């Protein structure tokens, strides 16, 4: 098949997304060092949110410990770099694998528990990991660990890390999309709707739930590992339970269950502190209000809001179904 025909086969929506990322890429390459640093962090948080979206958005599993996966990724990378002296890419990959195992482990109670208990257990998971890394010198205790990545960060003045982050985010989107249209995605949606019915249909609830947790953990860990490389610091308070809530809010704000929702939500995680010039309490307040508003008034998130607005402008009166729970052979978002 010729390239032209192949390109023509790419759906319009995907082409728009790729174009948008292309523009983003250029912006990051040309900007000053500090804006590029912020953009890189945006990509990293997007990756983490994409991971959580698989569990939370597709499967409606309320995982409140996602920060724990990022913690495993960041600390895994730091330990691999500082104690084992592995190269950076290997460290991050290894952390990703480790986190996947942890994710599956956390997923195990998820099979038996539901709703409230699961939320509590995942929350407790996040807190416990947080306390654990603070308590041993191996992970730097309360001070955390520093990574000798000054050279890595200086490559092409941070553009290498930017490229890697962008590519990882795109990869994450790709993974998310393929889960969406795969058996696991369909299974998750059915489990989310009614688990007993799903089981009666012969769906391997255990397998698909574990797969979801494993994927979320892996993406979260890679995100955490990259965070460590980009900032050079792995400090416990970065991965406190508040981080779990932050990413959770990002997914909901952007639009849970949507493909690009997490990316949009993550933009707020990064943008609000920058816009408020680091006035911490103010930025947290704005974020909290946004979170509260979305959860109370706009359950479809900002993406849903934007689409509703566009539809109204375009004059449509009835909204064609756009959420994931609908026809799953059509491509998202």
């Amino acid at each position: 098949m010729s390239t032209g025909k192949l390109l023509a086969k790419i759906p319009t929506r995907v082409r728009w997304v790729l174009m948008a990322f292309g523009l983003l890429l250029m912006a990051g390459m040309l900007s000053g060092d500090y804006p590029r640093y912020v953009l890189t962090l945006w990509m990293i948080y997007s990756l983490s949110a994409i991971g959580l979206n698989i569990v939370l958005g597709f499967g409606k599993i309320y995982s409140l410990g996602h920060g724990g996966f990022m913690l495993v990724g960041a600390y895994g990378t730091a330990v691999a770099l500082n104690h084992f002296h592995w190269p950076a890419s290997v460290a991050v990959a290894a952390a990703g694998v480790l986190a996947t195992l942890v994710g599956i482990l956390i997923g195990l109670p998820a099979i038996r528990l539901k709703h409230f208990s699961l939320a509590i257990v995942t929350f407790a998971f996040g807190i416990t990991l947080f306390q654990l890394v603070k308590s041993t010198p191996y992970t730097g205790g309360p001070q955390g660990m520093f990574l000798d990545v000054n050279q890595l960060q200086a490559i092409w003045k941070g553009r290498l890390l930017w490229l890697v982050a962008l590519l990882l985010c795109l990869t994450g989107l790709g993974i998310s999309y393929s889960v969406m249209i795969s058996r696991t995605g369909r299974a998750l949606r059915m489990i989310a709707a009614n688990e007993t019915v799903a089981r009666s249909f012969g769906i391997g609830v255990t397998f698909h739930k574990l797969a979801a947790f494993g994927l979320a953990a892996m993406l979260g860990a890679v995100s955490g590992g990259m965070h460590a490389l980009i900032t050079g610091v792995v400090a416990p308070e970065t991965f406190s339970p508040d981080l779990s809530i932050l990413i959770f809010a990002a997914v909901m704000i952007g639009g849970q269950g949507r493909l690009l929702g997490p990316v949009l939500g993550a933009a707020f995680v990064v943008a609000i502190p920058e816009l408020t010039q680091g006035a911490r309490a103010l930025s947290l307040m704005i974020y909290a209000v946004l979170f509260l508003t979305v959860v109370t008034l706009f359950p479809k998130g900002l993406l849903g809001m934007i689409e509703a607005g566009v539809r109204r402008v375009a004059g449509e009166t009835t909204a064609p179904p756009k959420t994931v729970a609908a026809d799953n052979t059509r491509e998202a978002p």
Partner: protein
Amino acid sequence: MNMRRAGIAALCAFFSVAATAEPGVTDTTIFLGGSNALSGPVAAVCAPASYGAKAWFDKVNRDGGVHGRKIDYNVLDDAFSAQRAVSNARRIVQQDNAFAIFGGCASPTSSAILQYVVGQPEVPYLFPWAAMNELTEPTKKNVFALLPNYAFQVRAMLPFTIQRAAVKPKTAAFLMMNVPGAEDMRKAMKEVLAAQGISLVYEELFEVNIPDYTPYILQLKSKNPDLVLFGDSAAGAARLFLTMKRQDWRPPTAFGVTTLTAEQFLDPVGDYPDGWLSAAGMVSPPSAPESKDCNDALKASYPDQKPNHFTMFGCLAAKIGVEAMNRTGRNLTRAGLINALENMRGYDSKISGPVSFTPTDHMGTSAVVPFGTKGGQFITLGAPLKPAR
């Protein structure tokens, strides 16, 4: 500024089109940046250091500035988070193009900034309130300190404390917050104790500002040491002492590091530590006559801020910074500043011992002042102390 110009300015900021020759220096302004815990668990203790420094800079600006330039000192909040501290440092250097990173407080955050600054060797990092050895050991060209590190404090003052005890201690305990500098302090303590024939029966590190010290005090109580060395943020230390009161146990002698010399420690504990606590200090207390101009400056800029040891330290840091910039001259460059500092010998700040730097020693002060408490006030217990070596 109309919309178009605002847009262009934003674009320029995004693509970082800078214009000045020496970063942070214009014809009229010197721009300094800093990161401090302005909110969060140690804010009440750490933030005053920034206010003390800013107040002094304001006074200098009123008196004409430094060779005709006004100092603009902008402090960002890191809320005692190492992550945010690095972010702030990055912003200060890359986005705000500051002349130097100045001040700051607490060893965890200062450590993080240090890591970043080591990768930016042209940017001066001056005088954080942080007592970890790595700040000046080994000497880094662009990093200068004024606060003696914890190990130094122990070596200088522990023998004095032991000597002062009514009955010579036979056993000792180490209960210290887990921050950069703690391990070096532990090592120094072990050396001093060994030299004096005192055995160490308990050593524990804890997280800064934990809400409940009961398990630690109960453990200490069961070991019943004659001497306890400890360190925590002032508020945490206050809680530690109140827990001792509640559990009805205290050691006959206690030694605390510089973090204690703050009113957040004194106010809650009242006269409980009188007679058996000694703590290390390095700046004149606000009540001393020589502290007057710092206090006046503070009152002019921050009338609601009570003078305390941290505002005094901030004032000291600012004084040294201004002196160095003055010595550098009208042609103010980062390299010139570093040079001026390295050639400072025996400068009299009036509120501390003589301040000296050399190309191989970037620690400005060389003695600690022994403090005790009496009737809810800090009092000096003797002349400044240096380590025996």
